[in-house]
Structures are given as C-alpha cells and as structure tokens.
C-alpha cells in the first residue's frame, strides 16, 4: 500500500499538468496538440503524399505505372500516331498519344509506387489533401484534373553536393 500511493498521486499530477498545458494560450507555449481543422489548417510537410499530379508532356503511355499499381487504380488508354521526322528526309516517327489517364483515389492507397516507377518524370507527389467529394465516383480524377494538380507540386529540392547530375 505504501508503495502504491506515491505513484497514484503522480498519475493525478500528470493529468492536471496536461490540463494547464492545454488551456495555456499557444503564444505562451501551451495549447492543444490538435488543430481546429476547417478553421485552422496544418501545413503538410513538403514531401507529404497528398495527391498525385500528372505532367502530360512527359507521359509516353508506357503503362509502367498502371502495371505496378497494387490497387489497379490507374486507367490509361492511348494510341499511336505518325509524327513528322526529326530531320528532313527521315522516316516519320511513331508517337504515343495519351487519350485517358485516370487515377481512382477511392482505390489509391498512396503507396507512391507509380511515382517511383515512372521513367520519364510524368508523375509527382503534391502535398494538397483537400479533395474529398460527396460522391465516391467523383474521386476518379481524369487527366485534366491530374494536370491541374501540377501547380501544387513543390519545387524539387536542391541536389546534394557531388550528386550525379541528370543528363
């Protein structure tokens, strides 16, 4: 019994200290650990996995992202077109034109494998997270919407000194 009592009182002290800390205004180093979300927002970390943005010009319809997606939530369609040759007298080139690029965020589990696997830097993480919808079908973002997210993609951080420059 004699051993129990100090610990019991210490426990009461912990909760009492937490009350005083929470009711102390933020500017005096107190405040709650939570944020009153719709009224005040936490800035997500710059590399937060909020939403995936698409840079259409870099996409070659290689399907690597769609194939590597564990949830199969990326839908890609494309077709081939002939493009004028690069230098006069050459053969016309085959180019892949992107017709459809949808990500179903109702399925996406934010693993980021598609961003990792993309060989042409067409997919980027954006920290934007406020895109909930009243209807689940509207969570399917088409390529126009995915392109709009590009604006929210932060600048890539500086490379470390001595890192290999991309050619």
């Amino acid at each position, binding site marked *: 019994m004699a051993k129990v009592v100090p610990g019991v009182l210490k426990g009461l002290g912990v909760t009492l200290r937490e009350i005083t800390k*929470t009711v102390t205004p933020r500017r005096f180093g107190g405040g709650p650990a939570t944020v009153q979300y719709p009224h005040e927002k936490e800035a997500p970390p710059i590399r937060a996995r909020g939403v995936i943005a698409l840079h259409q010009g870099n996409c070659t319809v290689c399907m690597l992202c769609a194939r590597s997606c564990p949830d199969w939530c990326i839908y890609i369609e494309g077709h081939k077109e002939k493009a004028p040759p690069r230098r006069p007298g050459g053969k016309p080139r085959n180019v892949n034109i992107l017709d459809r690029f949808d990500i179903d965020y109702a399925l996406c589990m934010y693993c980021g494998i598609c961003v990792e696997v993309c060989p042409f830097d067409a997919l980027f993480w954006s920290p934007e997270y406020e895109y909930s919808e009243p209807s689940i079908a509207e969570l399917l973002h088409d390529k126009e919407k995915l392109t709009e997210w590009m604006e929210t993609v932060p600048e890539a951080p500086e490379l470390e000194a001595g890192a290999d420059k991309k050619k």
Partner: protein
Amino acid sequence: VIGVEIPYWGQTLLRTLGVTVAVLIPAGTAVYVYLFKMVSFMQSRLGPMEAGPYGSMQLFAEVGKFLQKEDLAPERADRFIFRAAPIVVLVTVFLVYVAVPFGPSAVFANYDTGIFFALAVTSLSVLGILMAGWSSANKYSLMGGLRAAGQLIAYELPMVLAVIGVVIQAGTLNMQGIVAAQKNGEIFGWGGLGNPYLLTQFVGFVIFMIASQAELTQTPFDMPVAESELVAGYLTEYSGFRFLIFFIAEFASAGAFAALASTLFLGGWALPGLPLDASYMNVVGPIVLFTKMMVVMFVIFWVRFTYPRFREDQLQRFAWKYLVPLALANIMATAVLKVVF
C-alpha cells in the same frame, strides 16, 4: 418563508420542478465542464467547439440525437422490466436529492434520519441495474449487471461505515443537523472555520470518495460497463431515450454523491462568515452547495480520467481487505476521540 400560502398541488408542482432542476443542472454542468471539456484538456485536445460558443450547446445536440433514435428492445427481452429499469435508476437519484438540504428551509424533506435515507436510496440503483442486465437477454448485459451488483454491495459497506464517523462526530443523522454541527463546530477551541469534517474526518472523506467512485461505476471501478470486456455491460441493449435516461442518471448520481460528500464533509450549504438561519441563505445556500459539489465532482472526474480499470478480484479485495478495516478503525478512533474531547 415566502409568507404566501401555497395550495398543496402548487407545492407538489414546485417541489417537482425544484428537484428536477436540482438533478439536471449539476448533471448537465458536469457533463459539459468535466466530461466534454476537462477530459479533452487532459488529452491535449479542445473537445466540442462547434455547437454554440466553445461547444456549450453540445449537450442539447447530444440529447436531440438520442431522442431521434429508435427505442429498441431485443426480441427475447423481458419487455416490461427492460423498459422500467432506466426509470428505476433515475428515480433513485431523484430520491437522494429529496434529503439533501440546500438552505435553512430550502430542503425537500427534512428527515430526522436524512443521511440514513439518502444512503438507503443510493443502494436502490443497483436494483435498476440488475433489472437492466437480467432483462436484456444478453450474456454481456447479465455479466455487467452481476458485476455491478457485486461491486455496489461491496462498496456500500465502506461508504456507510465512513459516514458513521461523521454521524458520531455530529451526533445526529439529520442532514441539517450535520451542516449546523460543522458550521458551529470548533477545532481545538478555534471556530473561525467552523469544523468542516473534511479536516477531522479526512480518512472518512477519502473512504467515502473512493466508495462513491465505485458506486458511480466511474473509471477505476467501471467493470460493470467495461467496454473492452463486456461491450457496454448492462447498457449494451439500450438505445435512444432509454440510454439517455441511464446517461443522465449516471451523471445526476455523480451530482448526488457530490452533494452528499459536500454536505457531510465540506459543510454543506453553509459558509464560514455567513449566518446559518438568515432567510437569504435559501438563495445563497444552493449556490454555495453547487460550488462545493462542482469541486467534489472535479475530483471524481479527475480520478476517473486518470486511472485505468481495476481487475474484478482486485476490486473486491480492495473493498473488503483495505477499505472496510480502515473504515472500522476510523469509527473506533472517532468514538474514542468523541469521548476524550
């Protein structure tokens, strides 16, 4: 006191209104201030903030939500007993307030054996809880009801024994008499503070608070509703306004025990420096008592939100092997000192 003759039906109406206010105001205040806000602060969050300024209207939102829900009863339940159980629990809380004095003449019924009456009706709530557990036709409810019965009987004893110390010192079972005895009492010949029994009956106060924590099935003693073991114990099958009645009864009885503790140990509605029999004390007295109740309830909820739950055997051992002997020793010491002084 007022000087106007009120007909009997009018008195009945006024008393009904009065006891309803006396039950609901402390219960509602405790739910908002302690259950919604204080526990949130303890967990480093703000609690409800949207309904009204600082979430102060949250309680009405909750009540509205419960009233909208369907009043379900399980198919195999004993309908009549199932429906009556919450009412029985709530009525016992109302009955406690009948004996608690709020002022020199602001008392619903000034019984000669008021504290005896109050302790007797508090132990009636176990009947309602057993009814709820038994009639739900659900094993979790039954287990919860039986646990509640075992726990409430075990802690009834130390509570009564703790009160006996106060009764010996005050020399009366009348609640007004206990208030007056504390107000007019002296500690070693010094009467500046009166003699709140918190000081001279500190052991009794601690036992009373622990026992009332158990009687209220508040957290270190919440095995009857242990959600991780028994879903919600005897509350499992209740929904809608019957659950709401249980909920109100839980916090109203916290208020009732706080009122008993304030009356027995903190001097009740009297304050040092205020007269004992002036008629304005009928207005000031309830405020004083309410303030003291809030302090006691703060302690109840502070303890509730600090500690984890006891195990069933630890609970019984704590009551029978520590609290009851301690309470008996307290009675002996009080009796000896009563004779000596």
